[in-house]
């Protein structure tokens, strides 16, 4: 029985922790989401504070300490907790700086792509007619194009720099926002309360800001988190292929590319940056799943029912 299969310990702290109001308490009731948020916050924290907390200069080479293993293995030392690479650079420090690169690129891309995409979606939905058709066909055309291939081609021709990477990833990422915004706005325009707002005499900007955009906020937050994960992965892939971040700078994808030659002798060179990428994306997806359930009243009700069932099941025992 599913009621008894759940561990009672999972529900008890949740039952006691009902004081923090609203969203926070809902988040605290969901363990995977708590872990995911915690990990993402850690990454953000590291990315911001990296110059203060980093143990070594990520570019400092120490040829005597080449390919040192992580601290807990024979031959490792606590001064290089996650070991060193083939030039004696500290793996942990490089991952910390890599977090900064990944995060700043991904967040910039998300900001540019979502702003542009939402604007296009609003225009398509509001102007309608031919403008709508043309914009949406552009979206379709671009979506049918493999975006990584497009990015590689453009970067090969233009040469690679962080700015070009941001631009190319933004160009290949705005369509989803445009399509989603258009869909929601078109359906929201037929809502009675939007019609009422128009008839009452509200101006168009006011209707969009006060009556339509609040509908988009919830699905948009889910989409933003998912897109963030996609962009982290895309940046890592481009850097791995040598078309993203270029050497003196660091990036998780670049670290893996440099470490792949030593994968049999020094597994830690690819494993730790790889784990950083994987955990970031996993956390983002878990958080997106939580956000989706939380913003959908029906799903939320189901989750609430499950929590209650679990709680009463544990009480009965």
């Amino acid at each position: 029985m599913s009621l008894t299969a759940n561990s009672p310990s999972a529900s008890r702290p949740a039952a006691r922790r009902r004081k923090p109001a609203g969203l926070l308490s809902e988040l605290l009731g969901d363990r995977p989401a708590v872990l995911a948020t915690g990990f993402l916050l850690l990454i953000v924290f590291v990315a911001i504070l990296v110059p203060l907390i980093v143990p070594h200069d990520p570019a400092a080479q120490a040829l005597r300490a080449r390919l040192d293993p992580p601290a807990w293995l024979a031959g490792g030392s606590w001064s290089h907790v996650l070991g060193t690479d083939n030039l004696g650079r500290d793996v942990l420090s490089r991952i910390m700086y890599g977090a900064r690169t990944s995060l700043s690129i991904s967040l910039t891309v998300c900001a540019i792509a979502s702003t542009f995409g939402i604007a296009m979606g609003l225009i398509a939905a509001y102007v309608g007619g031919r403008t709508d058709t043309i914009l949406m066909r552009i979206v379709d055309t671009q979506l049918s194009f493999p975006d990584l291939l497009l990015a590689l081609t453009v970067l090969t021709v233009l040469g690679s720099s962080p700015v070009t990477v941001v631009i190319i990833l933004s160009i290949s990422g705005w369509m989803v926002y445009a399509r989603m915004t258009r869909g929601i706005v078109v359906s929201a325009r037929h809502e009675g309360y939007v019609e009422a707002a128009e008839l009452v005499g509200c101006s168009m900007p006011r209707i969009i800001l006060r009556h339509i955009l609040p509908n988009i906020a919830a699905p948009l937050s889910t989409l933003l988190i998912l897109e963030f994960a996609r962009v982290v992965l895309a940046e890592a892939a481009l850097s791995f292929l040598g078309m993203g971040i270029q050497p003196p700078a660091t990036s998780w994808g670049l670290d893996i590319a440099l470490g792949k030659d030593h994968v049999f002798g020094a597994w830690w060179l690819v494993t730790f940056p790889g784990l950083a990428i994987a955990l970031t994306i996993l956390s983002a997806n878990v958080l997106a799943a939580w956000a989706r359930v939380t913003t959908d009243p029906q799903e939320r009700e189901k989750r609430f029912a499950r929590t209650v069932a679990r709680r009463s099941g544990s009480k009965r025992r």
Partner: protein
Amino acid sequence: MPESEMAKQADPAKRLVEFTDVSVAYDVQRAAFWHRKPPPFRAIDGVSFQIGRGETLGVVGESGSGKSTIGKALLGRAPLATGNISFDGRDISKLSGAAMRRLRRHIQPVLQDPYASLNPRMRVADIIAEPLLVHGIARGKEAEARVAQLLNLVGLPSDTASRHPGSFSGGQRQRIGIARALAVEPDFIVADEPVSALDVSIRAQIINLFRDLQQELGVAYLFIAHDLAIVRHVSHRIAVVYAGRVAEIGPRDAIYGSPQHPYTRALLDAVPIPDPARRGERRPTIRGEFGRPGDEDHGCRFAPRCPLATKICREAVPPLAAKAPGHLAACWNS
């Protein structure tokens, strides 16, 4: 159109709204360049009437008759094909943009579905205060005071203001909708089937509210409904609409007492008699399908279903002619 007869309907000095030969046409399909564009669908066709200050015109008709389109045309949300609409002596049929928004200070809507017409994410206070804000009438404390006053006016407790519409019943929501419409002190309210979505038990309350508010504030209504029993209690005059045309229009008591158009008679006969002793009584009913307005352009549109139809009914459109002072019907045989 017999213009002189029209003029008798409302005293020109007190005339607020005037429809003159108004037609609304919708494109059925967008024209693709290898197809010819199908002829536009006329939702209403040559409709003329007036409404005076502080007066209620009830509009009755079955689904698809164009009664809602009349309201939409007045609110500037229907494309006029012919004719013009004047409000307070001013032609409003060509207004758009900012001018249209300014007009909305004087004409406010009460919508059919109180469950859809209130934004679920806004507090009741913000919903009611929104017209005040957008028309620059009041804000902040002043708007709050006005909201409290309006809630009192429509018979809602003052703690309603801080809650969201989700916690109210249909009747209460419609009261909120009415309070919003009244916020800017309009001269005119278009009520499009304001009680159709409500429980029968609370319809009477809302209808009485409409009536009381009119006595108190002198606001005029276009009150749209699909059955005669409902408009009877609020209307001074009633227009019966069939297939996009006015079949009969006149003072309430004349419409109920001596209906001139066979369609009006059929509608009155369709009102159930609340008397079990008369249960077995059979009354004549009309049969057949409701013809789409715009399908045929000659003859009376009611002719295919009319028990009185003669040859002329199928050949010439009956004019809206006076049968008694202020009482007009479009029928050859009455």
